[in-house]
């Protein structure tokens, strides 16, 4: 009698399965298929990968996103961890007010954040125009000069995302038992020593998580350069980042196989990061 029954729990995941398959698994498999075939659908090995790699826009695009990601990760790690440590151990009311202020720009993600920063970078209207002039920026076009872009995009990403991570790090710091800090204090450790020697190692896996996840997200950059391209009337190329290049190959040239090859490059980066997080940080380990 029991053997005839539906396995327990299975019916509950049935509505979810088509979505997982259609928009999670199938797109990846289809992109792989396209990347390894020619326009006529015949097997072409690594031809599409080699072809896109030698495209004159490919290497610059990857250089751009690596520069951007490097700058962003550096500022993220230093300032998020630094600010979380500074906030931790403050009076609760002060600390929660600061956390709220840091988190607030998180509501302006996507296109909204880019638009805000286009204004902030325009010396004509920016409240920080004196700072811009210090850096020699007296015209908007100078602010978005090619050499500045990785920094500009890193700043936008930091502005919208850092607050969320500060809240996460702060939460992780709060899980450190009070007795541990107390014991260190009795042993004569100052606030700085406690922060570096005790607190930092305790939130290491969260820092690793943030770093890997942000690296993967950073390589997918699309909207920021896309909007700056529109605001600069083509001064900034529409193939600045790798995702943009893949998009242009698909849309402007109808070269879906080449677009798929770049999409697969980026997918591999994202998948590697995900596997690394699951297997190495221990944050998603469950006993089952």
């Amino acid at each position, binding site marked *: 009698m029991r053997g005839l029954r539906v396995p327990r729990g299975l019916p509950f995941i049935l509505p979810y399965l088509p979505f997982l398959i259609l928009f*999670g698994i199938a797109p990846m498999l289809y992109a792989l298929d396209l990347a390894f075939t020619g326009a006529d659908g015949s097997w072409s090995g690594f031809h599409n990968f080699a072809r896109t790699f030698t495209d004159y826009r490919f290497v610059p695009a990857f250089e751009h996103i690596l520069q951007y990601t490097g700058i962003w990760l550096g500022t993220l790690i230093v300032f998020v961890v630094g600010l979380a440590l500074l906030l931790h151990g403050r009076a609760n009311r002060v600390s929660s007010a600061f956390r709220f202020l*840091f988190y*607030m720009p998180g509501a302006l993600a996507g296109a909204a954040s880019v638009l805000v920063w286009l204004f902030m970078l325009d010396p004509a209207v920016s409240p920080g125009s004196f700072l811009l002039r210090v850096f020699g920026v007296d015209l908007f076009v100078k602010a978005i000069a090619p050499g500045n872009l990785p920094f500009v995009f890193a700043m936008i990403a930091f502005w919208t995302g850092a607050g969320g991570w500060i809240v996460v790090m702060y939460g992780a710091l709060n899980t450190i038992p009070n007795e541990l800090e107390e014991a260190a204090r009795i042993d004569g450790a100052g606030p700085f020593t406690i922060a570096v020697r005790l607190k930092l190692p305790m939130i290491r896996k969260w820092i690793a998580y943030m770093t890997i996840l942000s690296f993967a997200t950073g390589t997918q950059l699309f909207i920021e350069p896309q909007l700056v391209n529109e605001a600069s009337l083509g001064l900034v190329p529409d193939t600045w980042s790798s995702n943009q290049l893949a998009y242009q190959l698909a849309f402007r040239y109808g070269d879906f196989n080449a677009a798929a090859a770049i999409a697969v490059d980026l997918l591999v980066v994202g998948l590697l*990061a995900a596997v690394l997080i699951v297997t190495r940080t221990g944050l998603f380990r469950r006993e089952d």
Partner: protein
Amino acid sequence: MRITARGLRLVILTAFAVFFVVPVLWLILAPTKADGALVTSNPLSFGSFHQVALAWDHLDAYSDHIYRAWIGNSLLYACSATAIVLATAIPAGYGLALGSFPGRRLVLTLTLVVMIMPAAALVLPIFLELNSLHLIGSVFSVILPFSFFPFGVYIAYIYYATAMPRDLLDAARVDGASEWLTFRRIALPLAKPIVALVFFFSFVADWNNFFLPFAVLADSSQYPIQVGLSDLLSSTPSFNPAQGGGGQQVNIFRPELALATLLAVVPVAIVFLLSQRALVRGMLGGAVKQ
């Protein structure tokens, strides 16, 4: 010594608070001033409400009220996708946490991996897939991919795996309740805070998504607000003096652009407040019952 360390800490925190808050303040104040005043007056001064009304009239008149359509589209896409997410992710998390069936681990691992992967990595593959199915340009090419939200499944899974008292479920089953009835009467009501959490994350992710709708929609009347903003940006002279004439025709200058940006954020801010309330209430409710 202690005083200066404390002072330094406060100075650093305040400096960062200024960095995070001033752009938001500027954005709130910008629509209260005319374009010329934005350049000449103090960047953080208040203009007048009359200017806000004027900026709204210009924005609303732009391209035959298309701004309203964009907001409506965003609401339609984010709400319908989030409804599907709630209907599929909560039961799925429950089934994965308390069920035992072949393939459970595989589904769980795939969900976890896709959840951690940046969503943008899947946009072009999804575009290529929909393109081969000739679904490009349909609203379903936005709503259906939005409806796949592995993070929601994961939240529900963690909740049911850790916080669900199994005795309660067993008791219901002993009493002869079917699997569905057990879920409907016991598991689902207990998960109210999780529903709020999943709603919040899903809605915000959909509302802020730019890349997918940008790639799969063709007609500007179908755009959600995020893509609409980029459309607006490219038709104003705010950052391109070369576009000068165009700006006069469409009457979209910096105050209008700032207002458009500000209004685009309002729904996310509202959902944020609503969900936070529901979350706190849900947790308190649970505490009282136990």
